[in-house]
């Protein structure tokens, strides 16, 4: 089914998807459909609804925790839900395919809490507010990134809670055999080797400074093209495993690389941004101290390594995210 193929199956749907082709082509036809159904059903929440932005911080007792549908997001959403349950809130989890879908829902209060990545989310909000060509605001420095992120989130009625220790940065992996053959340990090594590299990544990679442009400019890597297989997806990793592509964009908490015979190349020139994990909440529904305190308990506990281990249990051992999250919190004495 072609529809399913174009869906972003990324285990990391953290990046803007290119979905303009159908939007413009089918726009007119679909407008007819929308108009047909919209008659008399205008009460649904609007994407453009900013009515609650000025409302004071609220403390709803029933909270919807959003997950972006990939393993790590599922795990974090489960942990958030369990911690909120522990603090006396009622919770449910809604899993949505990508940020384009859940961010508007977060603004409108259909979703109240979402696990996010500081720099990636800051850049996403920046692109939404100032256009796709806006100067990126995410940086390798956490404080700078958080300041920019909070500045962008506040006008949308969103509160960004404090960042924890866990960081899920973008990272690049190559086949272990390829790395051995060409003696590669870092991205700088790859740049020096002068090898031609086809990169499996999200289609937004061609524009993002941390991706193709950064690899070319900072590391001097000869990127011949981007294969839009998504970020860290099975398809993307298989493409590198089979030699169809040479490098894949994935993340530091990916624990399935061994399975595909892949190794990470070190980001020795610090191209990647401060993608610390931060809970983002809808201020008018979950902007209270109670929610912040409940979620902050995770900040000093959860590390990048822990997160990779938990991802591994779900991705490689196929345990239930719910059970893995619960056991982890119990082990750490948080439940």
């Amino acid at each position, binding site marked *: 089914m072609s529809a399913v193929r174009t869906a972003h199956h990324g285990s990391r749907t953290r990046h803007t998807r290119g979905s303009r082709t159908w939007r413009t082509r*089918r726009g007119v036809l*679909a407008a007819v459909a929308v108009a047909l159904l919209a008659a008399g059903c205008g009460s649904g929440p609007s994407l453009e609804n900013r009515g609650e932005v000025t409302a004071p911080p609220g403390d709803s007792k029933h909270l919807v925790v959003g997950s972006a549908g990939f393993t790590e997001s599922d795990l974090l959403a489960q942990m958030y839900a369990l911690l909120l349950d522990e603090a006396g809130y009622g919770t449910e989890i809604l899993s949505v*395919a990508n940020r384009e879908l859940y961010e508007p829902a977060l603004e*409108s209060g259909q*979703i109240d809490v979402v696990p996010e990545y500081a720099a990636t989310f800051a850049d996403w909000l920046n692109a939404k507010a100032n256009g796709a060509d806006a100067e990126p605001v995410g940086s390798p420095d956490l404080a700078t990134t958080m300041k920019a992120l909070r500045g962008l989130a506040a006008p949308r009625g969103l509160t960004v809670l404090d960042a924890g220790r866990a960081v899920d940065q973008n990272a690049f992996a190559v086949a272990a055999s390829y790395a051995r053959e060409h003696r590669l340990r870092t991205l700088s090594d790859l740049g020096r080797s002068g090898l031609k590299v086809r990169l499996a990544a999200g289609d937004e990679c061609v524009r993002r400074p941390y991706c193709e442009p950064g690899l070319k400019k900072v590391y001097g890597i000869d990127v011949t093209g981007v294969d839009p297989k998504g970020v860290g997806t099975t398809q993307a990793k298989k493409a590198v495993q089979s030699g169809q592509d040479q490098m894949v964009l994935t993340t530091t908490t990916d624990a399935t690389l061994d399975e595909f015979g892949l190794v990470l190349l070190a980001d020795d020139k610090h191209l990647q941004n401060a993608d610390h994990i931060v809970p983002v909440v809808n201020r008018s529904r979950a902007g209270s101290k109670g929610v912040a305190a409940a979620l902050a308990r995770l900040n000093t506990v959860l590390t990048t390594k822990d997160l990779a281990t938990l991802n591994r249990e779900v991705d490689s051992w*196929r345990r239930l995210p719910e059970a893995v999250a619960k056991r982890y919190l119990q082990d750490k004495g948080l439940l």
Partner: protein
Amino acid sequence: MTAPPDDCLARNEWICGRYLSTRREILVDAVLQHLELTALSVAVALAIALPLAVLARRWVLAAGPVLALTTVLYTIPSLAMFSLLLPVYGLSSTLVVAGLVLYSLTLLVRNILAGLRAVPEETRQAARGMGYGPIRLLLTVELPLALPAAMAGLRIATVSAVSLATVGAIVGFGGLGNLIYSGMNTYFKAQVLTASVLCVVVAVLADLLLLGVQRLLTPWTRAVRS
């Protein structure tokens, strides 16, 4: 680092008993959600398609636009459909149902209309001659005779709704699609296979159920054959 547990889940086998036993509740919920989405959308689509088809049959001028519009709706890619309906319905099961209703319309309107058009003119005249008014003619003569074609449309619409409902996973309401979608992300063989098989089973059972209903409603079709 702890060693992986040695079971069919960790080995990522296609068929895995432990998957079924640990995920029973999740699978049941997914099937129920799938049935709910499909049944609701086909029922609503039928309620809309029937008057549209009757309208198109009565006024020849209406037939063109009605068929054109429903066919155009059918050509919208499902991902686009759900995304475009998002501002109207938000993240809800209503969104998925609305999308499925629009897709079912084409199949239902076309087939009901074909059934109505196939009613022989002599039959209609005979009924009129016996003093049947337009409403009674429609309800007791035309619709029953259109039933086989209409039921064929209903069966196709239902089966395609079962498969299209999976795309609802992008907004978290896709029934078995939720499992297929997350299983594909992590290359989880048992989950993808189990959910896909269940999806096919649901489609086949729904089709058989409707076939049974059709046979009950149209006993005369069998009488003619035998």
